[in-house]
């Protein structure tokens, strides 16, 4: 009898726990988070792309619960227009010059871009990685190498793809992208003084039906396991 009661209680508790399980969230996230987010939490639904295009989709009423941008520009603009809740910074990143493992153009430093005949791929001026790239080139006084650009890509993973396939000789991407594709590309460092401030922001979308769950999910991003995984992937954590 006691055993049956215990079993009943267990069953009730289990079903209660099942009902209280948080809903699956739809997370719109910068393309550079493609590898790390599913590793942090594989249960959510992710849509990866250029932060500018994702922000546009949120503006158009896309069914996102959480928006994660590779630049505060887009989260802050949406916040100002009342479309997302107050954004939080949760990690940072660095830019590198990526080359194919075989390095066909023989680049050794970022300054070699000026001398050599290279096929360079960058992001469009609008996508965060593209605007960071232009900041770096301004700081290095090397904006003239933009004439060697053979393609402007809509997001950072498209740049990585063009380099990994050997179509392009070099491209500016995040250090985390090179780690994720280290079997095919490698990084050439950019001097620290030329680095832009690359901050990632995350915000709950106001039109979401799961705002409480989305806030809880965001809070977990700053906890031990998520932070460890972000750092292991090469992201900067305060």
């Amino acid at each position, binding site marked *: 009898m006691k055993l049956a009661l215990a079993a009943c209680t267990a069953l009730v508790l289990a079903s209660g726990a099942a009902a209280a399980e948080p809903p699956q969230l739809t997370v719109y996230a910068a393309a550079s988070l493609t590898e790390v987010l599913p590793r942090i939490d594989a249960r959510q639904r992710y849509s990866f792309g250029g932060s*500018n*295009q994702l*922000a*546009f989709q949120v503006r158009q009423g896309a069914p996102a619960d959480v928006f994660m941008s590779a630049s505060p520009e887009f989260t802050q603009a949406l916040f100002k227009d009342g479309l997302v809740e107050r954004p939080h910074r949760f990690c940072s990143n660095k830019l590198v010059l990526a080359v194919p493992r075989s390095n*066909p153009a023989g680049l050794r430093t970022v300054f070699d871009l000026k001398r050599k005949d290279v*096929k360079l*791929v960058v992001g*469009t001026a*609008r996508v965060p990685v593209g605007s960071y790239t232009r900041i770096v080139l301004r700081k290095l006084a090397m904006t003239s190498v933009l004439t060697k*650009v*053979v*393609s*402007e*890509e*809509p997001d950072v993973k*498209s740049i990585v793809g*063009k380099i990994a*396939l*050997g*179509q*392009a000789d070099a491209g500016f991407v995040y250090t985390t992208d090179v780690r994720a594709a280290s079997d095919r590309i490698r990084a050439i460092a950019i001097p620290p003084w030329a680095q832009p401030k690359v901050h990632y922001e995350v915000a709950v979308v106001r039109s979401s039906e799961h705002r409480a769950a989305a806030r809880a999910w965001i809070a977990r991003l700053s906890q031990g396991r998520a932070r460890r995984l972000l750092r292991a992937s090469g992201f900067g954590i305060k």
Partner: protein
Amino acid sequence: MNVRRAAFSAALTASTAIVIAFLLLPVVAIFVDVPPGQLLDGLRSDAAAEALRVTVKTNVIALALVLLFGTPAAYQLARRRFRGRALVVTLVELPLVLPPAVAGVGLLAAFGTLGLLGGTLDALGVSIAFTQTAVVMAVAFVASPFYIRTAIAAFEAVDPALLDAARTLGAGPGRVFVRVALPLAASGLGAGAALAFARGVGEFGATIMFAGSLRGVTQTLSLAIYELFDVDFDAALAVSALLVVVSGTLLLVAKLLPTWTRSPSTFLSGSVRSTSS
């Protein structure tokens, strides 16, 4: 019974109305969202003007190549009966149903730097990546089946007796092709070319994967829309409106060409006379 018949007829009408509304609304919306004056301003933007230039240039070259190689190939496939012909025709038609992203991956795997022919091309000093050649190849790959399919049908519709008559009157096979088969199939070939051109102008997926996107070099109108839509939606609308007009015109040409020239008797006697003269 009458009620049933009326209900069926009403259901047909309703379905037709839904289909037309659904298919037309997005097209109409492009023109309604932005006033015509603003549409023209959008087209005057540098990005749109350069994309138009790139699109016209690459598509004219691609179409010329498709016509040059596709017409004899279609003639051959229409005239000759050989084992595996159905298979060959199906293979030629394959890009028609292939997802553009697959076309992009395929072109990279074949002609990319690390692709099948990449090493050979590299040895020859040819680099296709990120050039207008890559755009032309992507366009030709996705558009040629539209032409070749229609061209095969057009050549098949030519009465073989006329070709045989030309032969017996002393015309060589080349002359029969140029002076008899081509004029007789002309309207069908024109319709196919218009369809292929329309498909080529709209090409997106294979182009962005194989050729990349750079303003003034490889950025076609479709790619420009993709780059513009979140920055300047009005400009994206303007370019879209232009493409609607171009595509609509091409479809109309493809539809009307066969009917314009449908006076077979005069057409046929004229051609045959010219070959025998």
